[in-house]
């Protein structure tokens, strides 16, 4: 039986990790579970995941990509999922252009690509990189590095502002980020036009270490699943501040679409890799395809 | 030439100068004597406008009939006036890392346009003048050496060359021989006397030893605790007379203090033996 839980919180694509917003939620958690909750906030997931791997963090808040790493490297297991306040099951990846741009659809973008500059997302970003590279580029069998006039990569914030400032013609972004921009800088948001929207990306998961004592797991799960559903005004308010409705149960399968994309990305990379021998290449590709098939079967 | 009126300078705890009134005429060579701390350097620094006297004390200094400072404020054209006053400092005040020649050319800054000096494009005529000045003090051979590689006596002579290059009408020399051995002292004083004679420059030289004042300067001004206690012909300065106005401090003025080297002033070595009575 544990007395203390180290709770890691990173900024994900969909949420911020400001201590002040989280504090009421964390104290409610302490009260309800009787565990002492030590919260740690970080801007980057590497530290939290390594911490979880060595049992310095027991429960953590992740984005999809980082949750995948946590499951693979750090004995993590997804057990719950947030639900955005608007009730959607997740968020979307976008391609954005300036309001005055003549581009209005994905076709326009791909057609005029040779004269456009493209702001790609951080390679670790799900919505900024992974999703568009599959649904926009891989599906259409083009390589962004080749078709665009030039490509730079940055985080969502920079990409949004770069489009608003006309420094790049097209960029990736996501619905959460644009919503936040709409609150803080409506004028900037007004300068941005969405030309493409992806399929739904599942919302942020909560991950715990597999080897957590069952009793502790039960306490945590019980708290999360009931939070905000018992009709307490205060709890609803806390969730609202975090931008959420009550939580939903979830498991590692949440990651399957993401894994699919990740594997696909890997496959493209191996295909284009000239450094490895043809024999090795076919072998690796076969492995990847096998994994892809396994995922397809699960879905 | 130099007119000093009601000059008073108060330092934090003490009076550095106390109601000094003096006039030096054109073409004079005046010695300024006084024991250590009597205010010789302070007076010199006021004359060349590096220090200002007490505000609203009514103090005023005119050099070449132009006001250098009044009431504790530098006059607007102090910079212009300074170009007419050459100063030789007690610690030479050369720039160590520059060559001897560049140091000497600093004397021309007052008349060379800033853009020329800053881009190191001194006119050839000025360069020639600098070299001539160095030759006059016997330092032409060291023109391209760094100032820091010179011995004390040589630095002193470079400082004189700088003042010469300045073509100043007034030369202030603050204890130019304080850190030199007797032979070098003689050489430096001879050079000053020669400049005074040949170029008709007004010279004010502060000295620690009365013997030199008597030998080289017709007139002496003596300071004590910031006040003028004597102003008249140097020949009148007999030991007994000095004792009268100085009290026990006389001894120091006449025989070089043995314990000077023992004072807690490392890096400043003031023991001069009795000066050689014969000039070159």
């Amino acid at each position, binding site marked *: 039986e544990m007395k203390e839980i180290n709770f890691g919180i990173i900024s994900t694509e969909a949420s911020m990790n400001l201590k002040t917003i989280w504090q009421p939620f964390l104290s409610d958690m302490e009260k309800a579970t009787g565990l002492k909750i030590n919260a740690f906030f970080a801007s*980057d*997931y*590497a530290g939290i*995941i*390594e911490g979880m791997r*060595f049992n*310095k963090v027991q429960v953590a808040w992740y984005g999809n990509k980082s949750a995948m*790493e946590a499951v693979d*490297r750090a004995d993590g297991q997804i057990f719950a999922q947030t639900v955005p306040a608007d009730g959607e099951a997740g968020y979307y990846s976008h391609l954005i252009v300036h309001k005055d741009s003549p581009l209005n659809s994905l076709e326009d973008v791909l057609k005029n690509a040779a004269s456009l500059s493209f*702001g790609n997302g*951080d*390679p*670790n970003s799900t919505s900024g990189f992974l999703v568009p590279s599959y649904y926009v580029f891989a599906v259409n069998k083009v390589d962004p590095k080749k078709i665009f006039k030039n490509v*730079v*990569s*940055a*985080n969502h914030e*920079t990409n949004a*502002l*770069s489009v608003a*400032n006309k*420094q*790049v013609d097209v960029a990736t972004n996501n619905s959460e980020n644009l919503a936040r921009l709409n609150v803080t800088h409506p004028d900037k948001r007004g300068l941005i036009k969405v030309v493409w929207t992806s399929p739904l990306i599942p919302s942020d998961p909560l991950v715990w270490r597999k080897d957590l004592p069952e009793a502790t797991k039960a306490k945590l799960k019980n708290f999360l699943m009931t939070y905000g559903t018992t009709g307490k005004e205060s709890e609803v308010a806390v969730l609202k501040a975090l931008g959420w409705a009550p939580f939903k149960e979830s498991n590692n399968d949440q990651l399957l679409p993401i894994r699919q994309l990740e594997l696909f990305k890997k496959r493209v990379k191996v295909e284009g890799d000239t*450094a490895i021998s043809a024999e090795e290449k076919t072998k690796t590709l076969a492995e990847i395809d096998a994994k892809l098939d396994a995922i397809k079967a699960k879905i | 030439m130099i007119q000093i009126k009601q000059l008073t300078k108060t330092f934090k705890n003490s009076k550095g100068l106390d109601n000094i009134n003096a006039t030096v005429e054109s073409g004079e060579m005046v010695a300024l004597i006084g024991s250590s701390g009597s205010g010789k350097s302070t007076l010199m620094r006021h004359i*060349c406008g*590096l220090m200002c006297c007490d505000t609203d004390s009514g103090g005023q200094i005119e050099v070449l009939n132009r006001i250098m400072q009044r009431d504790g404020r530098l006059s607007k054209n102090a*910079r*212009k006036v*300074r*170009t*007419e*006053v*050459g*100063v030789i*400092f007690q*610690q*030479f*005040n*050369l*720039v*160590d*890392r*520059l060559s001897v020649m*560049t140091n000497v050319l*600093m*004397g*021309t*800054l*007052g008349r060379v346009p*800033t853009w020329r*000096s*800053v881009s190191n494009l001194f006119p050839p005529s000025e360069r020639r003048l600098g070299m001539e000045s160095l030759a006059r003090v016997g330092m032409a051979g060291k023109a391209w050496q760094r100032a820091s590689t010179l011995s004390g006596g040589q630095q002193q002579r470079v*400082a004189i060359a*700088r003042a010469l290059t*300045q073509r100043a009408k007034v030369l202030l020399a603050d204890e130019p021989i304080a850190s030199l051995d007797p032979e070098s002292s003689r050489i430096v004083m001879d050079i000053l006397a020669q400049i005074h004679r040949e170029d008709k420059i007004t010279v004010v030289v502060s000295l620690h030893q009365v013997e030199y004042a008597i030998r080289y300067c017709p007139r002496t001004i003596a300071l004590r605790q910031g006040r003028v206690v004597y102003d008249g012909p140097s020949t009148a300065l007999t030991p007994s007379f000095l004792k009268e106005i100085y009290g026990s401090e006389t*001894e120091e003025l006449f025989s070089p*203090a*043995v*314990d000077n080297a*023992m004072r807690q002033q490392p890096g400043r070595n003031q023991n001069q033996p009795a000066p050689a009575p014969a000039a070159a």
Partner: protein
Amino acid sequence: MTAQNTILVDNRPPRSVQSSLTKLTGWAIVMAILAWSWGGADMRPMDLIKDSGNMATLAGDFFPPNFSEWRLYLDEIIVTFHLAVWGTFLAVICAVPFGILSSENIAPWWIYQPVRRVMDACRAINEVVFAMLFVVSVGLGPFAGVLALWVHTTGVLAKLFSEAVEAIDPQPVEGIRATGATVIEEVIFGVIPQVLPLWISYSLYRFESNVRSATVLGIVGAGGIGVVLWEMIRGFYFAQTCAIMILIIISVTAIDLVSQRLRKLFV
């Protein structure tokens, strides 16, 4: 005048009590600050020993380093170097006037106070934050990094430069002033020759630091090896991370040795 040849026996002259009191107070304050910070810094020295095994495991992941993509790393290191060169160069150019203007002994207080505060601001804010800001205005890539290093380094160097200026010997400057020189001439002939060796030494030192700092700028996409380094760390490719770090160490050491030589030439 009195030659102290006499033999004084004076067994224990009053030791300066005040100075040892000052010292004691100083130590007490240091101790108090350390004690106060203990809690805030969450010091748990025992944990370090207890779980050092974890660290060994993690460090083990770093070896053997994987140099398979060394060409890419090398290219990026060279970009990092370029970035540091220009960032430092521009900063040195700006730090000269700002350094002089923020020196007590040259500028009047109504100049040096505001200049110092501006320099403080440049220094206090991290390069990465500046990089973020410049990325927005000039777009992504090394140029934003150059600008960030420039602003931050200007703040740092202006301070170091002005400290050197404040420590100069005032006598040569007075010597030049007495010839009727203008303020600019005083600075050029009286101040700069005195501080030049120190300035060069500081600039080289900062150049080295900037090569290191440039590796962090990658976090926000401002070019150089940093981008690759972070990608590797985030992807948990520790063997590659290790290779990059080794290359960084080698190049920083090389720069270090060269600049040490250069410094010796000037000082």
